[in-house]
């Protein structure tokens, strides 16, 4: 299993079932003899779903399964656009408070029961009100009045407007009311997993494999293949070997070092793209001002020099992001800028000017700010006028979690660069629990390398750096800027997409200027499939997710 910091990563997968049909027709209209349907697709992956109950699952693999078995009202396509799924149309009232969704007709669950607006209303209320659910309640504000005036209409009336309606609806896996109303949602194991999606779960072996049969009665058009099997190969080399041998037809993830071997094989196609659920590596500075130090949990021992913007800018000039991408990701990445990852499409502000790698400029900035190496030991000291307590030298503690693959080399490389500008790093690896306890809300650190997973909507990531999140521990840097907070509140309530995008871009500019984080890179993902087994994989979109219904609904046997 790819070990992600579970607590921090949201496994988010998005679907394109409705649009998948168009793609399917395109793919099949060329020539579709009777022999090229059916077949069993075998997929090798490193992890496995842990929970069949969509309220409880936290892993990426859980969400892959939900996407195949359930439908959501709205989905996000691989190019980053919100597209219809169960909801054929949706709109907001002039006062921005009442959202109306029109549902597709003739939708049935796997057990034959029709899916109506009552199921949607029931599901949304269940997700909002079940406190034991991990992520679902966070997609609601609690002020929603949900109604089902007729079988194909759902209205959601809010007290305050929301700008991320679509971003919330893409995770609302619609559950059958007639099954869930009789269960305790927090503990229901959902073994039968009755949904309305294009695949039905037929067998589930925890940590081993799962089998899904095509839903031949699927309201949006049945998949072409008969069955999909996901098999867990914990060891990455074994996974690669399974693809080469033909034990599996596709692998969802593998080490970048295997790419040359795979590309040399004529029967294997390697695809690269933005990950469907982007995740983010961040170099976090402790910039907590004394007056923002949390009263209950705060220790706030951050080095005072890191609260000096000039120092953070010098450090940013001493990071060669391209070099990191080449050595750490073997080229499979793009330089990060502010906290919104490149994979978020329109939300990512690509007009931001980054700090160029320039050690001379970094040295100049530090000289100019008065941080000089007065005792000639290779490490600069705080200016005399500044109170740096018992730590006059620019010697920072750097912590990172033990379960990170890239952080060890990233930390070493940073130490080499920063030493050249008279800044010393003391590197210490910590397990995630200990890292949490020094991080936040105690702020007992100087620099941390950690990460976040991202929703398709930037709202959550931006909330991380608001003043309100300092005492909760979500804001890891202690950054607090009223201007940023005002923009955050405004974009959350903005229903006009272009206006909201402009606000989100402005917020990224503020973060780029203020530098509470340095985002070294955004990793790309790569997948590979056997082109002699199945054809029609959607590997040409901006985002890559061959395990998504987008591909699995439309692939067909080769030859």
């Amino acid at each position: 299993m790819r070990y992600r910091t579970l607590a921090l990563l949201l496994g988010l997968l998005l679907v394109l079932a409705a649009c998948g049909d168009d793609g399917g027709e395109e793919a099949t209209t060329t020539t579709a003899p009777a022999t090229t349907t059916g077949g069993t697709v075998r997929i090798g992956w490193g992890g496995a779903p842990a929970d069949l109950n969509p309220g409880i699952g936290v892993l990426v693999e859980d969400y892959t399964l939900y996407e195949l078995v359930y439908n959501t009202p709205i989905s996000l396509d691989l190019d980053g656009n919100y597209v219809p799924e169960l909801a054929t149309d949706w709109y907001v009232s002039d006062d921005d408070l009442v959202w109306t969704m029109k549902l597709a007709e003739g939708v049935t669950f796997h057990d034959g029961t029709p899916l109506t607006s009552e199921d949607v209303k029931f599901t949304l209320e269940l997700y909002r009100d079940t406190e034991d659910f991990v992520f679902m309640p966070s997609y609601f504000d609690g002020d929603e009045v949900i109604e089902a005036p007729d079988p194909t209409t759902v209205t959601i009336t809010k007290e305050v407007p929301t700008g991320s309606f679509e971003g919330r609806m893409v995770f609302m896996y619609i559950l059958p009311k007639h099954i869930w109303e009789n269960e305790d949602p927090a503990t229901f194991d959902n073994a039968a997993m009755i949904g309305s999606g294009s695949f039905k779960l037929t067998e589930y072996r925890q940590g081993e494999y799962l089998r899904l049969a095509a839903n031949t009665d699927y309201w949006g058009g049945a998949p072409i293949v008969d069955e999909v099997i996901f098999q867990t190969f914990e060891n990455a080399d074994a996974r690669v070997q399974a693809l080469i041998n033909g034990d599996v037809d596709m692998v969802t993830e593998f080490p970048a070092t295997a790419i040359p071997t795979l590309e040399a094989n004529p029967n294997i196609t390697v695809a690269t793209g933005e990950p469907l659920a982007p995740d983010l590596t961040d170099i976090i500075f402790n910039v907590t001002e004394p007056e923002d130090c949390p009263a209950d949990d705060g220790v706030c021992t951050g080095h005072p020099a890191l609260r000096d913007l000039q120092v953070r800018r010098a450090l940013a000039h001493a990071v060669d992001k391209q070099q990191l991408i080449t050595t750490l990701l073997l080229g499979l990445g793009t330089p990060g800028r502010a906290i919104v990852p490149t994979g978020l499409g329109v939300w990512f502000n690509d007009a931001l000017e980054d700090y160029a790698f320039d050690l001379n400029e970094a040295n100049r900035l530090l000289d100019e700010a008065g941080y000089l190496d007065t005792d000639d030991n290779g490490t600069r000291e705080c200016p005399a006028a500044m109170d740096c307590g018992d730590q006059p030298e620019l010697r920072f503690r750097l912590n990172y979690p033990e379960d990170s693959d890239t952080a060890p080399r990233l930390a070493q490389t940073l130490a080499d660069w920063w030493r050249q500008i008279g800044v010393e790093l003391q590197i210490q690896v910590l397990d995630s629990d200990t890292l949490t306890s020094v991080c936040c809300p105690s702020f007992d650190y100087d620099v941390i390398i950690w990460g976040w997973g991202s929703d398709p909507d930037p709202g959550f990531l931006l909330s991380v750096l608001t003043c309100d999140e300092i005492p909760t521990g979500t804001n890891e840097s202690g950054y607090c800027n009223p201007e940023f907070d005002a923009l955050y509140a405004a974009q959350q309530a903005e229903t006009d997409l272009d206006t909201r995008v402009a606000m989100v871009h402005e917020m990224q500019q503020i973060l780029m200027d203020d530098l509470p984080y340095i985002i070294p890179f955004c990793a790309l993902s790569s997948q590979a499939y056997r082109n002699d087994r199945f054809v029609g994989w959607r590997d040409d979109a901006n985002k890559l997710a061959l395990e998504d219904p987008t591909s699995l609904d439309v692939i067909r046997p080769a030859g």
Partner: protein
Amino acid sequence: MRGRGLRAPPPISLMTRGSLFLRKIIWALITIFVVITFNFFLFRVLPGDPAKAGVKDPRLSPQAVAALQQRFGLDKPVLFNTQGGNLFDSQYFRYLGALAQGDLGTSYAYKSRPVTSMLGRALVNTLWLVLPAQILAIVLGVLLGLVAAWRRGTKLDVSALIFALFTWALPTFFLGILLLFVGSRYLGLPTGGRITIGADYASFWATAGDVLSHLLLPTLTFALVLLGEYMLIMRSSVVEVFSEDYILTAKAKGLTTFQIIRRHAFRNAMLPIVTLIALNLGFTVSGAIQVETVFSWPGLGKLTVDAVAQRDYPLLQGAFLMLAVSVVVANLAAELVYLRLDPRVTEV
């Protein structure tokens, strides 16, 4: 006794043996209880709060955290409930109470799954892999060790020694990957898993063949790793026995080498091997962690590794308990076999 080897053991009355047996069982039970208690508190003194591990998501509301803590009983005090009410209404005594009924709690990571059933299924899978590998390693290792000692100093002995040292020293995951590459590429063996998923075989034999083909590489890997140790211990043990006076006596009586080995050397030389088998059996129930990981074998070792990575404390606690019990039981079994094998053993 003269000239008759070890055929006539000194008589031990049934009563002595019976009480010895009972004493050993009581000691084993006490050991297990101490381990249970130690494990329980171990996870609570380690850095990182287990009470928070199951519920530490920055996006969980305080109500959600409270609800989850209540579900896992984490809202109770650890040892004694001094906040009024029942003194024993604490996490520790609740754990003991549940344990007495065979309930190991619910996994944090897999929130709707009882630990007992997860461990049970993984144990079955592990035994499928470990038992054949152990038997193979013991039989081959003991035979090879015996032959090497018998032909001591010959090319056969040296080759066997090098082979044993090499396989013993080879890192398990490396050997596993090597065998996986060779076996899957050139012999068409499967790259991982327990069965061919979704395959519909006509006969029982076809199914058995599928299972065996999946079992072959992991079993071979594990057996090769274990074999060296058995061989080396057996060899040195037999070499030592060969230098004993009673072997000289046996030779003087005119017994053939085969008779000497069968009637005198083998039994005595087996004592250290029994110890080793017991220790290994106890520990292998913890699963052949590396073999299981390389071959995606859903056994106890893989489950334990996953539990560590996900900080799944109830599952870890259960896995540790199982490991402890199996080590204690295997040692107990070894002591009982000693009683049978070596009459000199009358007390500990």
